[in-house]
């Protein structure tokens, strides 16, 4: 007789294995249903949004062409919105503009009609009468506050981090003294530009009402954000709101907060018309109206010893929030927390300022403020190395944080610090040190060079965030010894469903195929917290593991000798009814964060990465091609190594695109290039081959033997690595993104002129 327990124990573990992703077959056959693939519901209408097309002004009137037949067109304006606020952090963004217009693409009127062609004509039959007001598009102009466009003086948020000497004196005096005392002082300014997420599936939502309340389904990352927005706007009870994720074609942060607005719009139209309403943005509308990465400017002054030992850092970071607050305070916070890079500084003063401009609100985008500040600090370290006559890679290695060191927020790193190994692996694979020493290779008009970036990214919510959030997960016992995971975490391509099933299967000791993941619908799943912040595997995965273990232990406790897990489970269900384990996340007890002083354990742990880029610069056209990209990342534990590498490579390519070709071009508040034709993301021919290594320095509280969050990590390093490589190849120093041929050419002219 087969001992059931033995059989379970000898079952092949799936953690660390490249199982076929659970949604793989549906996705390769065209069977996966994204929001616009859902067949129309009976009576369904198409919805459209009329936008301000003025960057700032006062809405005087809305005119509806009287010669147009409006009989079968549903019209919604601010008057129809029960509580005209998009619920998020600050109540400053209306669902529909009522009076004030604060950016070019502010939604003002919603229209719905069953006939798409007529809807387009109705759209053209609406005229907005807006009295223009002076608008502000530049961060520094906003800070000067000559024209006030937000609050009292345009400043939405400020943060201050101090350490060492700066602790005693919050003004700049103490840090200035500390820097002045250093042997070498280096100053620089750095900036980054907007970036569009450009998920290939545009935003879209379907909403309807029935006796159960309001329903919305669509492309989204955070069903409970939409749920909260509905609760506020429609004053509904939680159980009257039903938000369900459809298969989602990429998000990268772009479907974190924005879907709330589209869902509200669809639901407003649905409410007024009494019919289901579908709003699918086309690409132009998606690029124009939805959120983007915050542009930033950073000023750095640092002091170090002549041998390259870093001492003191003074940094000021400014971010452009756009017209409304949305998630900007959190983005700025993450930016300042990562601003010191992965380096040891004794004295630190980092100041962050978020200001408003009359551009569409910037929002969540993979990396969430960190790519901006890591761009600045990595470029700055390159500048320090230049001044000292050291190789930047060596300077970085010499100053990298190791276990026991303290970060800029005075957090002591307690382990799972795999940075050094990452650097070793990436340097070795690329032969970085020898090739840097050998200098650039110039063949005719083509110059090749190598550059590196080293960085760490915190996993999970900042500081006390997870403690306040209380993310939850439920695991149910199903017939036949199967488990179903219910969680609000969404799979937007990163492989959440698969990885959760792997975690639960090994935790419970059952076959991978016996675990399923419920569709995230607010009616059926607990709020696990949003699918953001590199927290899904590390934080939510950890409670999936606990819940699966707890449930399996219950089955195990009732198991009779010789009985299979399935039989024991079925008997338990028959005897005691539904079995499920609901587990709430508790951060490690030692996580200690002071929100006022911005000091302490900013994150329980950091994932690490080292990128080495090799570029070829055409000295005639100044086009940059990334020839090779090596990276090594400390992921704690790779639950699915193949998908893990896929995340790292995809993120790196987004960073390379941001560095080289992606540029949102603005003209008086309007986006000049809202198309895939002229907003250029890398193609397969632009992308380098990626060689990616996984390093595992386990995090003791991570699931499945120590996994850490890595979703955002790869976005941080691509741009500085490419810029360092361009500098190595050409000597051109670019501190302001993007590195377009025009910019490089201008820098070359300057350097020629200087010679």
């Amino acid at each position, binding site marked *: 007789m087969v001992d059931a327990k033995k059989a379970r124990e000898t079952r092949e573990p799936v953690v660390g294995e*490249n199982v*076929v*992703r659970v*949604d*793989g*077959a*549906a*996705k*390769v*056959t*065209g*069977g*996966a*249903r*994204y929001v*616009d*693939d859902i067949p129309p519901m009976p009576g369904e209408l198409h919805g459209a949004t009329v936008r301000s097309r003025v960057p700032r002004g006062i809405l005087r009137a809305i005119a509806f062409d009287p010669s147009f037949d409006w009989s079968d067109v549903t019209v919604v304006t601010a008057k129809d919105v029960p509580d005209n606020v998009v619920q998020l952090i600050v109540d400053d963004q209306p669902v529909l503009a009522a009076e004030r217009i604060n950016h070019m693409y502010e939604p003002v009127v919603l229209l719905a009609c069953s006939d798409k062609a007529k809807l387009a004509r109705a759209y053209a039959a609406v005229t907005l009468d807006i009295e223009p007001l002076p608008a502000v598009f530049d961060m520094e102009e906003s800070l000067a506050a000559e024209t006030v466009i937000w609050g009292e003086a345009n400043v939405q948020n400020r943060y201050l981090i101090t350490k060492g000497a700066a602790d005693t004196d919050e003004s700049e005096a103490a840090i200035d003294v500390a820097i002045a005392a250093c042997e070498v002082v280096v100053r620089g300014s750095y900036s980054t530009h907007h970036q569009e*997420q*450009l*998920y*290939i*599936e*545009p935003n879209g939502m379907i909403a309807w009402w029935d006796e159960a309340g309001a329903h919305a389904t669509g492309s989204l990352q955070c069903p409970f954000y939409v749920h909260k927005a509905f609760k506020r706007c429609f004053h509904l009870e939680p159980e009257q709101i039903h938000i369900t994720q459809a*298969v*989602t*074609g*990429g*998000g*990268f942060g772009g479907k974190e907060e924005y879907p709330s607005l589209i869902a509200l719009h669809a639901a407003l139209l649905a409410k007024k018309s009494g019919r289901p309403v579908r709003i699918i943005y*086309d*690409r132009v509308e998606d690029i124009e109206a939805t959120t983007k990465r915050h542009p930033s400017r950073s000023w750095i002054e640092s002091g170090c010893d002549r041998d390259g030992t870093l001492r003191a850092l003074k940094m000021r970071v400014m971010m452009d929030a756009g017209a409304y607050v949305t998630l900007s305070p959190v983005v700025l916070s993450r930016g300042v927390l990562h601003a010191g890079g992965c380096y040891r500084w004794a004295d630190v003063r980092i100041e962050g300022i978020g200001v408003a401009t009359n551009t569409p609100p910037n929002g969540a985008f993979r990396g969430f403020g960190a790519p901006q500040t890591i761009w600045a600090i990595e470029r700055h370290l390159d500048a320090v190395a230049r001044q000292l006559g050291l190789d930047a890679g060596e300077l970085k290695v010499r100053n990298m944080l190791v276990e026991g060191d303290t970060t800029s927020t005075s957090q002591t790193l307690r382990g799972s610090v795999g940075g050094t190994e990452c650097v070793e692996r990436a340097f070795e694979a690329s032969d970085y040190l020898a090739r840097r020493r050998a200098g650039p290779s110039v063949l005719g008009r083509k110059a090749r060079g190598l550059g590196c970036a080293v960085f760490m990214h915190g996993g999970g919510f900042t500081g006390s965030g997870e403690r306040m959030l209380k993310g939850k997960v439920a695991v149910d016992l199903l017939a036949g010894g199967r488990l179903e995971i219910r969680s609000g975490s969404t799979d*937007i*391509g*990163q*492989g959440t469903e698969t990885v959760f099933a792997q975690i639960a299967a090994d935790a419970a000791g059952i076959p991978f195929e016996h675990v399923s993941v419920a569709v995230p619908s607010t009616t059926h799943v607990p709020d696990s917290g949003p699918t953001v912040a590199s927290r899904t595997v590390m934080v939510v995965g950890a409670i999936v593991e606990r819940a699966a273990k707890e449930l399996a232990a219950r089955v195990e406790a009732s198991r009779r000798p010789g009985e299979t897990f399935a039989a024991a489970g079925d008997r338990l269900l028959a005897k005691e009814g539904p079995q499920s384990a609901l587990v709430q996340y508790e951060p490690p007890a030692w996580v200690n964060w002071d929100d006022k002083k911005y000091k302490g354990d900013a994150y329980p742990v950091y994932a690490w990465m080292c990128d080495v880029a090799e570029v070829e610069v055409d000295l005639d056209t100044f086009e940059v091609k990334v020839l090779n990209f090596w990276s090594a990342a400390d992921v704690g534990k790779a639950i699915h190594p*193949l*998908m893990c*590498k*896929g995340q790292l*490579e*995809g*993120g*790196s*390519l*987004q960073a390379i695109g941001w560095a080289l070709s992606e540029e949102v071009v603005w003209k008086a508040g309007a986006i000049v290039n809202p*198309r*895939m*034709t002229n907003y250029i*993301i890398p*193609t*397969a*021919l632009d*992308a380098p*081959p*990626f060689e*990616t290594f996984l390093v595992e320095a386990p995090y003791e509280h991570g699931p499945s033997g120590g996994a850490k969050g890595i979703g955002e990590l790869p976005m941080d390093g691509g741009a500085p690595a490419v810029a360092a490589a361009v500098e190595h190849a050409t000597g051109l120093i670019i501190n302001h993104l993007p590195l377009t041929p025009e910019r490089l050419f201008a820098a070359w002219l300057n350097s020629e002129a200087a010679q």
Partner: protein
Amino acid sequence: MKVAFKVNGVQRHVDMAPLARLLDALRGPLGLAGAKEGCGEGECGTCAVLLDGVPVNSCLVPIGQCDGREVVSVEGLGAIGHLSPLQACMAEHGGAQCGICTPGMLIAAEALLRRNSDPTAHDVRTAIAGNLCRCTGYERIVQSILHAAYELRSSDKGAAE
């Protein structure tokens, strides 16, 4: 306009304005939602199908030009339980993350493998250069297609021996 054409091996008919897009015919009356609309202007390749064996962006093809011709969409490559080697490799080797670009990628790759059974990585990159993917960095897509080419060659060899 009445259009009669073969879709995934089956004779089908639609009645649409001649300038209506093939993409809308597929996703609408033909009930095949595999091809997606990522841009609607020929830039992203998510709407790609084979038209008489040649990959085209169906958002740019007027239905009026399809009469008497043969269209293959992702649904025509294989189905759940009967995945083609190319589809299986795409699922197994990390070629699909969010999956929205996958139908178009598969069509571009299918067209490549039909004319070149032993492509280099560069051949693969060239073949899918009109298909944008924002998730993968392309590395795993290229590897998936190379794996499929290898498997197809091995099975052909097996069949010939």
